[in-house]
């Protein structure tokens, strides 16, 4: 019953490769692991193909490099994931903005 990591994700190479240290995944903050987990859980439910996400991620990375943005790997991942969700019609941009506003204003503070 334990979940087995998907090799096409774990073994991604090139620009999109997961940050590792000693062969192990590295998350610099708790939110990075949460976003990673959300993305993979939804891929497991076949809400999108891994390549669709991967292409978004590579595009975000390329864009950030081109603009000289100092964002981190998982910040780019988060951007890519949000874009994909909107593109797939799973979330709307308006919903995202509204929910974020509720969190930043302190009207909502769900803890995970």
């Amino acid at each position, binding site marked *: 019953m334990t979940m087995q990591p998907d090799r096409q994700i774990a073994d991604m190479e090139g620009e999109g490769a997961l940050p590792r240290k000693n062969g192990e995944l590295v998350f610099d903050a*708790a939110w990075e692991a949460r976003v990673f987990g959300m993305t993979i859980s939804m891929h497991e439910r076949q809400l999108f193909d891994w390549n669709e996400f991967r292409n978004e991620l590579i595009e975000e990375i390329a864009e950030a490099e081109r603009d000289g943005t100092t964002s981190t790997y998982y*910040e780019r991942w*988060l951007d890519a*994931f949000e874009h994909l969700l909107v593109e797939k019609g799973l979330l709307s941009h308006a919903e995202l903005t509204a929910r974020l506003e509720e969190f930043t204003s302190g009207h909502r503070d769900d803890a995970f």
Partner: protein
Amino acid sequence: MSGNHAGEHHRHPESSASVRARALESLLVEKGLTASDVVDKVISAYEDDIGPRNGARVIARAWVDPAYKARLLENATDAVEDLGFGGALIAVVENTPTVHNLVVCTLCSCYPSALIGLPPSWYKSFAYRSRAVIEPRAVLREFGLELDDSVGVRVWDSSSELRYMVLPMRPAGTESLTEDQLVGLITRDAMIGVAVVPAPALAG
């Protein structure tokens, strides 16, 4: 932003990415597109599997290749380097039908990270570090491992100079498995010594 204090318990200012991630999770959960416990499971599956894979390769090789096993027990540091896993000095101790080995670091949390990833939080706990030495059988029982009285328990104290890893016994019924299939059976806990490698499920 309002001057509302609902986020007071966050002692450090939270990064904007972190707030975005929480907002996103709340929305996805509400829409039934994911569930927080599933997200937890994904994270631990990837952390667990990816960490201990190198160590599992070493163990599987030792199970299928007696010459490699002899070399591993004799000089583990060199033997793991043969497979491309360099790092700190390592010693490997073998479980047998009469001896079960358990690894602890009583001083801090020395651990063969290059082989089995980052230590789990319990490994660093004071309770484990002290009790593993004083009452190893009770500790093992709490991990769900009941050893027969005829099995002796040896406890090895890892240090920054020398880190121990357990060579678990190869479970019965795995004679026909390939080395790669064996790798999939070997868990981090078995290489620390708080578990044994279970026989593969019979079905399927």
